[in-house]
């Protein structure tokens, strides 16, 4: 670590950069995983959120560029997310249609469509979402930049406990959980299982779309074809790790954000030789967590019984 003194903070720059990275990078994870949490609680898996994320990021960038308002971009992203969620929800409501396969198809379709429509958006620069500086107390520039917090992150942090409350304490939450635990019971109680799952998938799509707008409108903050490399998919895996609990999704997202920031953080103090290897960290972490949190013998106790993601 000869190059560690490249910055004033030295090696301490790494944990700080990880913290900053956790806050910065975790937002898309957070929104996608909260969205997937709602969908999976209804007993359905939407693996297509990666496609939703990319498509929404492109739409957000386009809308922000054309209208000049990043918030219209967020709105556009949420709308696109709703459309993709509705498509998934509708298709999976048909008989004999596999939700995982439809997810893969929509993932490839969303990414292809985003690359097609986004071609003219690679050059121009669109207005970004604002950030709030929570590091005003410190003179150290690294601390200040680490605590530069985006509004969407704060929104996501507030959303996690709100969703947890909704799921456990409200009538809607109870209906959603009933449908996810036993479609038979929900039907017997007179609820329309198909439409509950449809709207749960739409809601999941909206949240994933908002997560996508963060990618193009804040960090990394531009539109290009390498914008998302599996965040949408990792977020789905993260929901399993979080045991379908919204608040745990928040902690898991922060962990994943930190892991994603490992490569850039080490590079910032001069360790650049294994750059690509450090970039493996979030994927490897996801895989390890999946292995640890799964069981061959039986599905996890917290898993909605109607879910087909782990059998």
């Amino acid at each position, binding site marked *: 670590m000869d190059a560690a003194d490249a910055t004033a903070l030295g090696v301490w720059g790494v944990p700080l950069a990880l913290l900053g990275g956790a806050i910065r990078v975790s937002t898309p994870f957070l929104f996608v995983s909260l969205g997937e949490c709602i969908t999976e609680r209804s007993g359905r898996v939407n*693996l297509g959120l990666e496609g939703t994320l990319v498509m929404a990021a492109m739409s957000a960038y386009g809308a922000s560029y054309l209208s000049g308002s990043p918030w219209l971009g967020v709105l556009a992203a949420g709308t696109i997310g709703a459309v993709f969620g509705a*498509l998934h929800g509708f*298709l999976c409501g*048909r*008989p*004999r*249609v*596999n939700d*995982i*396969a*439809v997810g*893969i*198809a*929509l993932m*490839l*379709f*969303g*990414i*292809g*469509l985003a*690359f*097609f429509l986004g*071609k003219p958006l690679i050059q121009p620069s669109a207005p970004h979402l604002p950030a709030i500086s929570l590091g005003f107390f410190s003179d150290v520039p690294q601390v200040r930049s680490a605590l530069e917090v985006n509004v969407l992150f704060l929104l996501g942090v507030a959303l996690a406990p709100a969703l947890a409350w909704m799921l456990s304490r409200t009538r809607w939450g109870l209906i959603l959980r009933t449908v996810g635990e036993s479609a038979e019971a929900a039907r017997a109680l007179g609820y329309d299982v198909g439409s509950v799952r449809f709207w749960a998938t739409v809601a999941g799509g909206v949240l994933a779309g908002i997560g996508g707008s963060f990618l193009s409108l804040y960090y990394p903050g531009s539109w290009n074809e390498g914008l998302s*490399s*599996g965040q949408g*998919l*990792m977020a*789905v*895996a993260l929901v*399993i790790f979080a045991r379908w609990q919204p608040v745990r999704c928040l902690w898991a997202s922060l962990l994943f954000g930190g892991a994603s920031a490992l490569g850039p953080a080490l590079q910032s103090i001069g360790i650049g*030789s*294994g*750059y*690509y*290897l450090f*970039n*493996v960290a979030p*994927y*490897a972490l*996801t*895989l390890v967590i*999946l*292995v640890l949190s*799964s*069981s*061959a*013998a039986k*599905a996890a106790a917290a898993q909605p019984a109607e879910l087909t*993601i*782990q*059998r």
Partner: protein
Amino acid sequence: MDASLIPETTAAPPSARRISRAFVARVLSGHVLAPLGAVVFTLIVFGVFVALAGVSPLDVYASMYRGAFGTWFSFQNTLLRAAPLMLTGLCAALPARLGLIVIGGEGALVVGGVSAAATAMVLQGVSPLTMQLSMALAAMLGGGAWIGAVGALRSYRGVNETISSLLLTYIAIALLNHLVEGPLKDPASLNKPSTPHIGEANMLGTLPGVDVHWGLVFGVAACAFSYVLMDRSVFGFAAKIVGGNARAARLSGLNVPRLVILACFMGGAAAGLAGMVEVSAVHGTANVSLVAGYGYTGILVAFLARHNPLYVMPVALVLGGINASGGLLQRTFGLPDATVSVLQGILFVSILASESYRGSEFSLARLRLPSWGRS
């Protein structure tokens, strides 16, 4: 047919009639109409899409046909692209026969390509045939281990195979980048970091008389082998039982984990072989060009072929043609290179949606058909 060969007890005419009736019923019940309808629907939706982009759909389809099958040159190009698609198609199709949705063909292809290139670095001075066989073996072992691990994680830890296989794809691509920038880098490759060239003598040649390399033979052979294995062998029968009901398979004494891991290994080996073909017949080195999307298109190939290795071949040919025509669409109409991905995406979604129209629930089947006597 020689009438004397037919035993007198089974009269030929009724049996032929029964077959034709079953065939008509099958066609009308949506087994053929539903996927056909999905293709027509795709062509209409994609036509509207390119029309909105300001290009005449008929012109686009005409030039897609020309770019894929229209000339001998373009057909050879299509065959070149069909070869890896057959192999990556198998990577999704073989595990699917046991009920696993594996989407990591791209990663297994990359691992196979790197393994082949690394083998060429280690084994220098051997005869070209030895070299090619070693590269193919290394690629199949590498790719097979990659997807075999997915099957093992699924069997022993219950890890969702769809997610783990895609995660492993991202890991494979990162490893590829790491290796070609570091340990395996050819110092002469500046603009595009690559492994050292495997040597002109070691390149896979072309088939006699055509400008198509031996990869096509690999693809066809792998599909034929997989067909025999899956539809004409005890292994395939056991796999079918697992795919139908894993618990029943376990209760009847089948070693389900072993079957799952073997099927995944063979699928991964096929995709790994595709990586070896790309390295030893197309690029000559391993670099980021390996990440060309063959693995993802292979998923679509498998689903369109209904996971039947025999159908994988023609479907790979058609999708290879669509891929091959992408360049022409770009040059002729100025459409982005993602146009082909949009078409494939619409086709994928439509074909899955058409599943709900297959079988007895299709409305045409409920129409009164003229009955040819009671059975």
